[in-house]
């Protein structure tokens, strides 16, 4: 066991804690349950490690079904440190069939996993609920993050509901709705005149010297595990089975990696009877597609890029989990689609028009990626496919251009009738 660096808050070991230790994904060195995310030797990412045999002996479908209607129904497979949960209702969102989208794309069965219904309307509430629960257990008083927007919303809201202070860092170019939906919670919002990668670099430096809970820095091993709950819910909502394929948007690659891990874990602890065989597919917008480019080139290393995309929540040019996302996609027989910038809004409109679901730009990328993967034959018509809709469209209205009514009329019934005749005939 390596000693964590000075300044790291340590959890008291306690009963009921189900994360055993942290382990480096690259060199397998182990660390105690603490607030750190980087291997002290090789700089590789630290991950939560569990005793699956112990979990398998106690976990059951019945116990989960009787649990809370939030991500915490899967507490057995989350890195709970102890000291109470921060639960404002993240997770247990709807998995709904999308027959009209399926018909439009020539697919037998498509499901939408719709995370717009989370407390701050994106999947980030899942990861923040886990991270701030750990933050409280470790004794932190300030919650912080580097964010492309949705995470800032989630951190500020969960911190407010928990009585923690929040300091969130964002690129200054973020959509106004995402800034408003952060500052309303009363925390400190720091806008950096640069890209997300600049924000990330600055936070990585600050995190080294401040006793703050940076959810996606020093609490990253806990935070990232929250994304597994998307896989858990999909399997449970399908009646404890897995789909043939999923389509996941890629920013850092963490979400995709953890969804794949989540399906595997369910089998490891006996909640799924069979070894899951899910094709893990990804999508990136062309203006920031370093992982898609590495996939297309057959490379494992991801070359960083300078993002220039309308899908700001996916605008990470130097994705930390890119190599692992590539491994998951290749190992499962999936693919990563590059979506031209002009098709991001098309994806938003297609989903809205066919299913009545208004997603943000990341969802537009995902829907357009699905369309491409079907066209290219990666997803075949018979594949039962789940599409992750990770956020709500109201935060990214800019992507749709100026809203123009179909008809603008004088307050005259005659004129309205005449114009309707022209439009509807």
């Amino acid at each position, binding site marked *: 066991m390596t000693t964590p*660096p*000075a*300044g790291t808050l340590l959890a008291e070991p306690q009963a009921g804690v189900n994360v055993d230790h942290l382990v480096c994904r*690259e060199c397998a060195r182990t660390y105690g349950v603490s607030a750190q*995310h*980087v*291997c*002290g*030797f*090789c*700089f*590789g*990412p630290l991950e939560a490690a569990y005793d699956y045999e112990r979990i398998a002996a106690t976990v059951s479908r019945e116990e989960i079904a009787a649990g809370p209607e939030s991500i915490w129904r899967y507490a057995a497979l989350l890195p709970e440190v102890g000291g109470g949960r921060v639960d404002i209702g993240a997770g247990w969102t709807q998995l709904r069939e999308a027959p009209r989208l399926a018909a439009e794309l020539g697919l037998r069965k498509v499901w939408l996993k719709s995370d717009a219904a989370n407390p701050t309307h994106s999947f980030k509430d899942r990861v923040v609920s886990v991270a701030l629960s750990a933050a409280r257990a470790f004794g932190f008083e300030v919650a912080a993050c*580097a964010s492309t927007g949705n995470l800032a919303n989630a951190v500020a809201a969960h911190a407010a509901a928990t009585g923690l202070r929040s300091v969130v860092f964002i690129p200054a170019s973020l959509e106004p709705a995402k800034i408003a939906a952060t500052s309303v919670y009363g925390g400190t919002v720091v806008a950096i005149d640069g890209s*997300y*990668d*600049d*924000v*990330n*670099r600055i*936070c*990585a*430096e600050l*995190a*080294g*010297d401040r006793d703050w809970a940076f959810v*996606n*820095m020093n609490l*990253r091993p806990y935070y*990232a595990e929250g994304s597994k709950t998307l896989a858990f819910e999909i399997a449970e909502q399908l009646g404890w089975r897995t789909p043939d394929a999923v389509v996941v948007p890629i*920013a*850092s*690659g*963490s*979400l995709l990696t953890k969804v794949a891990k989540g399906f595997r874990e369910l089998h490891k602890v006996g909640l799924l009877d069979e070894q899951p065989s899910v094709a893990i597919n990804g999508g990136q917008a062309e203006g920031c597609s370093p992982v898609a480019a590495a996939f297309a080139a057959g490379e494992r*290393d991801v*070359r*960083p890029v*300078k993002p220039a995309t309308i899908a700001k929540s996916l605008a*990470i040019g*130097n*994705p*930390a*989990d890119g*190599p692992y996302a590539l491994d998951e996609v290749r190992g499962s027989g999936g693919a990563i689609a590059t979506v031209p910038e002009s098709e991001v809004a098309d994806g938003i409109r297609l989903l809205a028009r066919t299913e009545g679901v208004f997603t943000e730009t990341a969802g537009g990328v995902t829907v357009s990626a699905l369309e491409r993967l079907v066209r290219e034959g990666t997803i075949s018509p018979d594949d039962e496919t789940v599409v992750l809709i990770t956020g709500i469209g109201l935060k990214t209205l800019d992507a749709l251009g100026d809203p123009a009514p179909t008809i603008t009329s004088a307050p005259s019934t005659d004129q309205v009738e005449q114009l309707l005749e022209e439009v509807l005939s």
Partner: protein
Amino acid sequence: MSVTVKIPTQLRSLTSEAAEVPARGATVADLIGDLEESYPGIAERLLAGPGELRRFVNLYLDGEDVRFLSGLGTEVPAGATVAIIPAVAGG
């Protein structure tokens, strides 16, 4: 050609806990060589092999990722600041 090198917490056991140290070198590679002389063991932590940064190590020259410049061959102007920062972050 002295420059300032910012040391992350993970490497401070090698620098007697110093968060910033001075170093010399015409290029980033030379700089790492100079750091290795002052703080033996540091090069192994930064490099995966000769001429290759570890995948999870980022080096920034005055705020710019050297991977966008000329990598380890990037020339380092006098008075610059080079920051060593773990790549695993964010998302």
